[in-house]
């Protein structure tokens, strides 16, 4: 029971919560959480030339053409013709909108010198005219630009203030979403304190010049009943109208991708866990002059275009033509991608305008092209357009933006010769997901490039140095020689490798020689063995023959003797002659022993 009540209570609360009217001004609806307070007046104040009129006009034009909300523009300063001409350059066709009854322009002209005040009066005429315009087109939106002209027109400020109070109440009663512009005062938001009548929403426009660079900024001073971004947001006025940059993402909760994209350099992909970087992550390529930062960036672009991804290359140092020509020399052909519409260059001098404007322009380009890869080359050049903290703030916002959009960002950063190699000038490395560091290694009178992955969030990556070479075949990474003498690159590496090869060759030759020796020895021994065996066989033969002859002679002898004895008359004497002999000497000893 009580839960149901709470739910209905919440529902009614939500229904009562402030409704918003989308302004249609790019970026503004993001920082206001949906637009201006619906059915209420909003005060837009700013100095001369800060874009107040345009703000109001775009609010009306967008409302009429995109949100089906017709509007009334009450111009106190410019005639309808002037207005139409002024905003035609921004692509707004006021005459057409008026003809379609989507817009009602009323030029409220009051010339103080032509009017004499002769007693009490009120501004009912203004109310009636606004009411007339609202009725004519069925307006949901009203712009009063600028009400402060009334202060110049009427002498009686008491009447005027009372009427202004009544006017704001009247606008609210009408339920129109109104924009009232006011001239910036020196100590107050508006010169005549209009802010005291508008309590719902106050927006301040600013046009500041710092170091001869102008930057337009917008700030929401107050927005009753709504959360809003409180920062100063840069904005642009260009051929597409007004665009405000929600430069810092209000939340840190962008979706992340697990998809990996190639860097365009196979060996580098291999160093990054074999698959390259995460889509939507940020890559910092830092290094001293001439280390090949642009070449690496161009490789990323080339690989992305080959995948069919659109790329935006923001060049702040070289012209697009120069980049294309230079990259052709290392076999990276960017022109076909440009022709196919996959790659677009955005080239600008850093000092051309302020950082905020740079950022705003990039936002716009990204919004137009919808790229999946953005290269900023180099970020360090921005230092000429702002202080270090400003540059860092700008890049933070740019990175936030790219991450929110899921766009892979490649940033090159020039490291000064003197500074620590791991310090990026603008101190953005902590914002980066992957940091590729390029270094020059000097040895044996030459400089060679080495690359290593200083960090790469969320993936296994190699911690080894690779020699980084640019040839007409593109960017190549080679293993460096790491030995007791340190890291060797270039010709030193080649020399070392040659030396090692020679040594290895020598070792090989030695082994072969020994092997041959062994063979020879084995052959020699084997020959010796064969010779000995032959000798032995020869001797054996000889011996056998001798034995045979002996036996033969014996048998012949025996045969002879037998023949001889046969001839003497056979067996006259008893024992054979060989068994008879002399008396035995031992018999004598025996005798001697018997004697003792």
């Amino acid at each position, binding site marked *: 029971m009580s839960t149901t009540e709470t739910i209905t209570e919440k529902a009614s609360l939500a229904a009562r919560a402030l409704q918003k009217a989308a302004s249609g001004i790019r970026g503004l609806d993001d920082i206001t959480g949906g637009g201006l307070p619906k059915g209420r007046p909003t005060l837009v104040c700013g100095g001369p030339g800060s874009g107040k009129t345009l703000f109001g006009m775009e609010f009306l034009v967008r409302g009429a053409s995109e949100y089906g909300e017709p509007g009334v523009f009450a111009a106190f300063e410019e005639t309808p013709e002037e207005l139409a001409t002024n905003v035609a350059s921004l692509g707004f066709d006021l005459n057409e909108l008026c003809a379609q009854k989507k817009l009602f322009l009323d030029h409220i002209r009051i010339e103080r010198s032509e009017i004499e005040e*002769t007693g009490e*009066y009120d501004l009912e005429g203004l109310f009636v005219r606004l009411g007339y315009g609202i009725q004519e087109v069925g307006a949901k939106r009203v712009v009063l630009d600028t009400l402060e002209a009334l202060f110049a027109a009427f002498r009686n400020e008491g009447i005027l203030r009372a009427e202004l109070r009544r006017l704001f109440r009247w606008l609210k009663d009408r339920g129109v979403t109104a924009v009232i512009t006011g001239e910036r005062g020196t100590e107050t938001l508006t010169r005549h304190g209009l802010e005291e009548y508008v309590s719902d929403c106050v927006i301040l426009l600013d046009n500041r010049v710092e170091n001869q660079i102008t930057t337009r900024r917008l700030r929401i001073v107050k927005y009753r009943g709504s959360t809003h971004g409180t920062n100063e947001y840069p904005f642009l006025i260009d051929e597409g109208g007004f665009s405000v940059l929600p430069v810092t993402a209000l939340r840190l909760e962008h979706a992340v991708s697990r998809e990996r994209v190639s860097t365009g350099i196979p060996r580098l992909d291999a160093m990054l866990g074999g698959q390259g970087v995460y889509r939507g992550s940020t890559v910092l390529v830092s290094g001293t002059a001439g280390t090949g930062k642009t070449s690496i960036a161009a490789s990323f672009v080339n690989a992305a275009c080959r995948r069919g991804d659109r790329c935006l290359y923001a060049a702040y140092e070289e012209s697009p033509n120069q980049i294309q020509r230079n990259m052709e020399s290392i076999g990276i052909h960017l022109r076909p991608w440009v022709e196919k519409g996959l790659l677009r260059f955005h080239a600008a001098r850093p000092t051309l305008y302020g950082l905020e404007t740079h950022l705003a322009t990039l936002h716009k380009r990204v919004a137009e092209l919808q790229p999946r890869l953005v290269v900023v080359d180099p970020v360090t050049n921005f230092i000429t357009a702002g202080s270090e903290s400003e540059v860092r703030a700008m890049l933070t916002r740019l990175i936030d933006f790219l991450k929110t959009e899921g766009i892979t960002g490649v940033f090159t950063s020039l490291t000064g010769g003197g500074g620590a190699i791991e310090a990026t000038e603008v101190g953005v490395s902590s914002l980066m997901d992957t940091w590729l560091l390029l270094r020059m290694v000097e040895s044996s009178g030459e400089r060679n490039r080495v690359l290593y992955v200083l960090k790469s969030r969320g993936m296994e990556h190699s911690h080894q140095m690779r020699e980084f070479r640019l040839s007409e075949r593109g960017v190549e990474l080679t293993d460096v020689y790491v030995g007791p003498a340190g890291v060797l690159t270039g010709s030193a590496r080649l020399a070392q490798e040659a030396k090692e090869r020679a040594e290895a060759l020598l070792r090989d030759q030695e082994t072969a020689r020994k092997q041959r020796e062994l063979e020879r020895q084995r052959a020699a021994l084997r020959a010796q063995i064969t010779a000995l065996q032959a000798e032995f066989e020869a001797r054996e033969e000889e011996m056998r023959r001798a034995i045979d002859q002996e036996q033969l002679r014996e048998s012949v002898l025996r045969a002879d003797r037998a023949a001889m004895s046969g001839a003497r008359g056979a067996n006259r004497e008893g024992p054979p002659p060989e068994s008879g002999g002399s008396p035995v000497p031992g018999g004598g000893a025996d005798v001697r022993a018997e004697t003792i």
Partner: protein
Amino acid sequence: MSEPKPSDDEATAGEEGEPWVLRIYVSDDTPRAKLAVANLRRLCEEHLPGRFRIEVIDIETDPGAAFRDGIVAIPTVSRRNPLPVRTLIGTLTDTARALDQLDLAERPETAVKGEDH
């Protein structure tokens, strides 16, 4: 929309040529509107007897008139004839200023000048 209504007691044509045309814009039948119209009529009767026409325009009933004629303050009195158009706002309580703005202050001189052309 609605045509200006001449009041009955005003001359439609004066004996000295074209009558003065004074248009007064009011909003609704408020006491202030009544006061302004009464003050204007009194001034005209005093300084332009029989040679004026007062047109009362109620912008509440004809808002387009306020837009077309560029009316902001109410009441506004506009001298349509003779030209140039002279404009004054307020209830015409400040008679001296009203006469000055309408060129009625030095009536004889102005009249001579006016009749010259």
